[in-house]
């Protein structure tokens, strides 16, 4: 096909014309691209450089090592041990199921943990998840050796809390656990650290109360990470501050002895240093192993703790409040002496009961004590004498004296649920019960029944104050990072020394006079004689119907209705060093159930170890030897078990 040349030339000029137009447009567009590039890369370069750094540089927290806890002699109560776990990075792993299947051939995986890991991975594949927690060193090495076959699997080392003394300090120190949502709600301005998954904070006890000292401050490290969140390298790091180490006033050997001696009972005991107020031991039984809680206690274990009728979880030594029974009588006596209502030579006639406004109040000794003076009233624990005292002094002065001696007061101790106890007043009864105080209430209070409530700690403080005449206050933390804290020596109480001497003499007689209520649990070693007071507090009155049926002895009642057995003492009686309070829940009589325990603890504390049999009355030595041997055997068994656990 031939075309006119003119047509051709014309159309060609047109093509060229248009090509130039289009070329011009292209040049224009290229210019636009160039300008845009200049705008982004030159004018906004700094801003984008910053954004790029924000992308890649992340600040990671370094959890601080938690403060360790020691006893007064430096033996470890709470420490940090390396804990190994296996992390899985879903993105790196690729086929997650295949990797988990291979991993499960190498180590045992907990199905719950695997399910949780799957769940976490569904939420975000960017962050590594824990696939196995608390693996052993051996398992960790096995995973490390097989690393090439396990893409995305990374062993990690962290610190975890361990309580090498197991049950002994469960109630004092408590335990730590991972931060829960409830913890976060409770804390107003949470530390960034708390947002670290599985970060451990104090949950109960000293761990919780002194979280401020123990936690420490987080360090930071700047890391470069890729888009998948994997750390490529560390740019720099600023170390944090480890938590403060706490030294407690307790003596671990004594603490262990107290727990062991109380074993089998639902009981509590407190041993105070009368000079400094140091808590040398503070035991509550039964106990539990706090390490279980750190690991995450199983439902069945927790249920069995909750359902145990001896209530292992609360610290009965400071949380448990009991009617102090006859151990309260020193308070009443001091109140009467200070008020001038009685003198050492006054006597009260005890016919076995006292009629007050038409109601008959019995003495524990039905037949009566006859004429009772101050010394005898304590020694033989005559109730009628104290009914009389209460009538003379009145409740307000008794309560005031109780508070001076540390009862009904909340003592500032870093433990969970330190109870205030209760010392009633007329106003208190009106305010809480809406009833007027009646004279019978005063009479009941005189023998530590009725509304009067105190914890073993209260009773130990009371005893220490009577022994020293100073307002000794308890101290649990001896030093913080080596810096000694203020001891609880206290000021002089301002009580008449003669009055105190009378009371102390009577308490000495309780344990050392042939007619004393605790004579059977005496110490014969001259330099360690103790001064004490028994107490038996009723949980409820024995009903007339029961009495008619012949139930008058405690042993005939079901456990939870039996009397509480109490004993308080200080020793040595001529130069007090320690004060002890023992409460055995539903243990029966104070002289039979509590006093022997208190004596054993006292001797153990004063001797700093197993006391010689010569300290005991000769008739009891055979029984004591058996007891000592049993305790020693049990101690060795425990040690072996713990050693096995450690390995």
């Amino acid at each position, binding site marked *: 096909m031939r075309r006119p040349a003119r047509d051709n030339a014309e159309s060609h000029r047109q093509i060229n014309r248009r090509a130039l137009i*289009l070329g011009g447009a292209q040049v224009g567009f290229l210019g636009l*691209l160039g300008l845009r590039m200049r705008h982004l890369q030159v004018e906004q370069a700094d801003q984008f450089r910053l954004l790029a750094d924000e992308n890649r540089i992340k600040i990671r927290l370094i959890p601080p090592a938690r403060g360790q806890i020691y006893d007064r002699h430096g033996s470890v109560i709470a420490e940090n041990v390396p804990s190994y776990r296996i992390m899985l990075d879903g993105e790196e792993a690729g086929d997650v199921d295949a990797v988990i299947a291979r991993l499960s051939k190498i180590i045992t995986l907990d199905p719950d943990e695997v399910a949780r890991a799957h769940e976490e991975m569904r939420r975000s594949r960017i962050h590594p998840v824990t696939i196995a927690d608390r693996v052993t060193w051996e398992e960790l090495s096995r995973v490390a050796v097989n690393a090439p076959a396990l893409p995305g699997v990374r062993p990690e080392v962290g610190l975890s809390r361990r309580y090498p003394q197991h049950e002994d300090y469960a109630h004092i120190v408590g335990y730590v656990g991972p931060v829960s949502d409830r913890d976060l709600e409770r804390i107003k301005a949470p530390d960034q650290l708390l947002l670290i998954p599985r970060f451990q904070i104090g949950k109960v006890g000293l761990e919780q109360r002194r979280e401020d000292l123990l936690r420490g401050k987080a360090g930071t490290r700047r890391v470069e990470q890729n888009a998948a969140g994997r750390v490529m390298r560390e740019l720099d790091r600023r170390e944090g501050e480890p938590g403060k180490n706490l030294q407690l006033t307790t003596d671990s050997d004594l603490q262990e002895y107290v727990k062991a001696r109380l074993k089998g009972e639902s009981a509590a005991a407190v041993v105070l240093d009368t000079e400094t107020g140091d808590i040398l031991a503070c035991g509550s039984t039964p106990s539990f192993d706090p390490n279980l809680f750190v690991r995450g206690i199983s439902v069945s274990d927790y249920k069995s703790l909750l359902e145990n009728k001896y209530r292992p979880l609360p610290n009965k030594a400071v949380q448990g409040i009991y009617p102090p029974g006859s151990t309260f009588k020193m308070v009443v006596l001091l109140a009467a002496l200070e008020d001038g209502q009685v003198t050492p030579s006054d006597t009260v006639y005890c016919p076995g009961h006292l009629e007050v406004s038409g109601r008959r109040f019995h003495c524990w000794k039905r037949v009566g004590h006859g004429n009772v003076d101050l010394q005898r009233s304590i020694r033989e624990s005559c109730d009628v004498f104290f009914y009389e005292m209460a009538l003379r002094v009145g409740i307000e002065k008794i309560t005031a004296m109780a508070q001076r001696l540390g009862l009904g007061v909340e003592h500032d101790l870093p433990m969970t649920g330190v109870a205030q106890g209760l010392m009633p007043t007329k106003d208190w009864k009106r305010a809480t019960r809406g009833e007027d105080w009646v004279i019978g209430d005063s009479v009941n209070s005189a023998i530590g029944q009725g509304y009067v409530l105190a914890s073993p700690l209260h009773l130990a403080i009371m005893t220490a104050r009577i022994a020293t005449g100073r307002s000794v206050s308890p101290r649990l933390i001896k030093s913080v990072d080596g810096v000694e804290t203020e001891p609880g020596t206290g000021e002089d109480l301002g009580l008449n020394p003669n009055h105190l001497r009378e009371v102390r003499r009577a308490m000495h007689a309780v344990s050392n006079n042939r007619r004393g209520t605790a004579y059977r649990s005496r110490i014969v070693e001259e330099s360690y004689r103790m001064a004490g007071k028994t107490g038996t507090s009723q949980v409820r009155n024995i009903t007339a119907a029961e009495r008619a049926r012949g139930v008058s002895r405690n042993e005939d009642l079901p456990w939870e209705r039996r009397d509480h057995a109490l004993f308080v003492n200080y020793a040595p009686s001529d130069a007090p060093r320690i004060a002890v309070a023992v409460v055995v829940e539903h243990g029966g009589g104070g002289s039979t159930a509590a006093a022997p325990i208190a004596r054993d603890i006292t001797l153990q504390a004063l001797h700093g170890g197993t006391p010689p049999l010569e300290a005991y009355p000769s008739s009891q030595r055979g029984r004591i030897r058996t007891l000592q041997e049993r305790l020693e055997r049990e101690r060795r068994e425990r040690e072996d078990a713990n050693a096995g656990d450690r390995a």
Partner: protein
Amino acid sequence: MSYLEYSVKHVPSGLGKIFHLNWALILLVTTVACIGFLMLYSVAGGSLDPWSSAQIKRFALGFVLMIVVALVPIWYWRSVSVAAYLVGLSLLMAVEYVGAVGMGAQRWIDLGVIRLQPSELMKIALVMALAAYYDWLPAAQKSRPLWVILPVILILAPVYLVLAQPDLGTAILLVTVGGLMMFLAGVHWAYFGAVIAAGAGLVTVVVQSRGTPWQLLADYQYRRIDTFIDPSTDPLGAGYHITQSKIALGSGGWTGRGFMQGTQSQLNFLPEKHTDFIFTTLAEELGFLGGASLLALYSLIILFCVLSALAQRDRFSSLLTLGVAVNFFLYFAVNMSMVMGLAPVVGVPLPLVSYGGSAMLVLLIGFGLVQSAHVHRPR
């Protein structure tokens, strides 16, 4: 003047043709491809594998193909234009049935050795077909409505098939290449005015149709448009690409962060860093100077093509050369606009640099045609 009308005596023959190739253009193309190898080496974290080595092999294959195409006389290519178009169209239809599913869209046929993207092939076939059409059509007829409708059908047939895949980016490129070919051929201005007006109308309809039962685009395409208009609406989702891409570009500064030192690309913050977003890696690591240099190289390639076209005496060669140049221009213009946040993310590779076989092969075949026209031009 058609190639039949000038004396072919002066046209070189045999292997002597090699000396008459446009070697400057070949050098430019090779240089750009080498930049591509380097960048692929960098994004692989300093390794030839997995991308760079494969890309070099493909380029070598494409280079040979380019020379072979260049040595075949241009009038032969004119004669197979219609056939090429029909083959391209058939392959596009075949994709509907035997195409492998990749990236959520059916775009390629697996031939075993290479995954062929018929839509890429169609770009060259369309240019050839339109060039042949206007070569055949008497110049006086070109603005007659009937003779305008025919090329429009030629354009829209593959566009429809590409949209069905769905691949909006390629569809837009095809329409634009076809339209610009018609513009170059000298179709009356009024038609373009009308089409632009209609296009504006269509955009309105597309936007309006969103959320109705007769919605014209897929949801993900709408979202891409949304995030293009305001990337901050979805910084971690679809807007992530644009935002990270701009951060990478911007943080490059004048001279860049250094070869293989770009944090955005080396730490994987960039999406598709070896394919569509490779320019951001280049701009981050080599800076404004590097980016502008690549832009300059591209401009030179276009310039050499246009100069070659202006020297042609027959319409087929002119239009074919210009068409290949326009096609090439659109590739990098759209890609760069996209990574700089000037256009929505539509999935167009950076020519000769992005990792990918089909585009590389098709571009080199295109340049082979340009060379063929250049070698066999009238003297």
